[in-house]
């Protein structure tokens, strides 16, 4: 039994798709039912995450990529995420502006989402929005977000391919070294590569990727981690020194290191190559089973998130009926300690208590 909204989505009714995404954003229970009805379509789309600092030209690059994908006959959905104001809860979503040229192309669907309180992260609804677009028949779904806060971590849970964008001359060449960010990129792009310093950024990123690969393998040429870290320190400080061949580890990784590509999104230079790289990596990942493994991991992660959110919702209810306030008072007056209180709440949740 399939509900009307689901039917309309499958038929490609854009209003229905848009409505479904909104309902998912609002946490409407019926909407999740609709998604369930659409589960046969899940997994069909190639989900691409694009992230980078403000000013890196993500939206322009996304706009050009849309053109490339369209030229090869694929339908493209885009989810552009922007932060909500922590003060008012509102947001100005301006990424669409750069892609409005595609607004009237029936094969393109662009949706702006506000992060709604997830500090710098993706909207909770992003993953669901992807599923909705997938169900409506979009072959490629691009998630575009600013690389601040936890958005990169969120994006890797949802995307099959993650593209990280850097720009030369944004003041700080090592912007890419944020905790964990080097690990999640499948393809690195240096945009606005006609600017001074572009080649240096490319070299620095390559050097860091190599370091990271070495650290992962735990290999060092001489004995002991000290030598390795000393060498790493040198690389980090003098990125322009190329690693000499004899210090490079064997590349057991079948795909080698992630590519570092140059683009000038404004003019479209480098974009067809980027598009080809994205598509071919995807095909390779499918063929080798990597994609399956990755999606497995990301679904597990989403499951954990969803359960966690349900637990939080439960506590919001308790907030409303005063139980948390009572517990807090009891803790502060030392009638109960905070750990016991937490365990009690959790058991109540498990037992399904409403009060």
């Amino acid at each position, binding site marked *: 039994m399939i509900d009307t909204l689901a039917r309309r989505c499958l038929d490609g009714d*854009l*209003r229905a798709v*848009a*409505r479904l*995404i*909104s309902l998912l*954003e*609002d*946490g409407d229970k019926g909407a999740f039912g609709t998604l369930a009805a659409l589960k046969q379509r899940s997994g069909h789309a190639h989900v691409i995450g694009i992230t980078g600092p403000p000013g890196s030209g993500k939206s322009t690059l996304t706009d050009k990529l849309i053109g490339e994908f369209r030229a090869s006959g694929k339908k493209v959905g885009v989810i552009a995420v922007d932060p*909500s*104001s922590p*003060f*008012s*809860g*509102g*947001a*100005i*979503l*301006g990424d*669409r*502006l750069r892609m*409005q040229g595609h*607004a*009237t192309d029936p094969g393109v*669907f*662009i*949706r*702006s989402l*506000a992060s*709604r309180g997830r500090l710098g992260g993706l909207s909770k609804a992003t993953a669901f929005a992807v599923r909705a677009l997938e169900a409506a028949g979009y072959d490629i779904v691009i998630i575009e977000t600013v690389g601040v806060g936890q958005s990169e971590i969120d994006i890797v849970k949802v995307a099959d391919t993650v593209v990280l964008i850097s720009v030369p001359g944004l003041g700080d060449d090592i912007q890419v070294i944020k905790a964990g960010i080097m690990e999640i990129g499948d393809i690195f792009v240096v945009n606005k590569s006609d600017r001074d310093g572009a080649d240096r950024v490319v070299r620095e990123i390559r050097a860091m990727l190599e370091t990271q690969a070495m650290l992962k393998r735990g290999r060092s040429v001489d004995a002991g981690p000290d030598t390795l870290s000393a060498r790493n320190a040198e690389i980090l400080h003098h990125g322009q020194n190329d690693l000499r061949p004899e210090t490079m580890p064997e590349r057991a990784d079948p795909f080698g290191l992630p590519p570092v590509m140059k683009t000038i999104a404004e003019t479209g230079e480098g974009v067809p190559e980027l598009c080809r790289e994205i598509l071919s990596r995807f095909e390779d990942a499918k063929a080798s089973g990597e994609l399956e493994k990755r999606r497995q991991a990301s679904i597990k992660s989403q499951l954990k998130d969803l359960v966690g959110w349900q637990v939080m919702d439960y506590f919001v209810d308790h907030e409303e009926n005063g139980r948390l306030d009572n517990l807090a008072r009891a803790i502060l007056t030392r009638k109960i300690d905070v750990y016991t209180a937490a365990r009690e709440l959790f058991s109540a949740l498990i037992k399904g208590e409403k009060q």
Partner: protein
Amino acid sequence: MERKIRVIVAKPGLDGHDRGAKVIARALRDAGMEVIYTGLRQTPEQIVQAAIQEDADVIALSILSGAHNHLFPRVVDLLKEKGADDILVFGGGVIPEEDIPFLKSKGIAEVFGPGTPTSVTVDFIKTHLKRE
């Protein structure tokens, strides 16, 4: 959780004066709404497609070039065509008072002239939503 009101702020036609549109966008954000700012040189088709994809509740049109009588009704007509006429449409800018009855007859809910406080616009949206 209170539903967020989603508003498209658009400048149809060739007019490039966006001070008002940007001020309105900020004011609406500060009032807790989600504003999709589509910028300059929007055709009615682009505006309506954006409104549909964004599941917008409101379309706010800003124009100072005198082309409102042609462009505003186009937006409303397209919304009707696509079965989306439950979206609230209003306008602002340099629009002579004597054109307002015509615009309203074509489905523009209200026209806010120069000097309208942003709070008036915010309240209008909150009290005139056509959906839910």
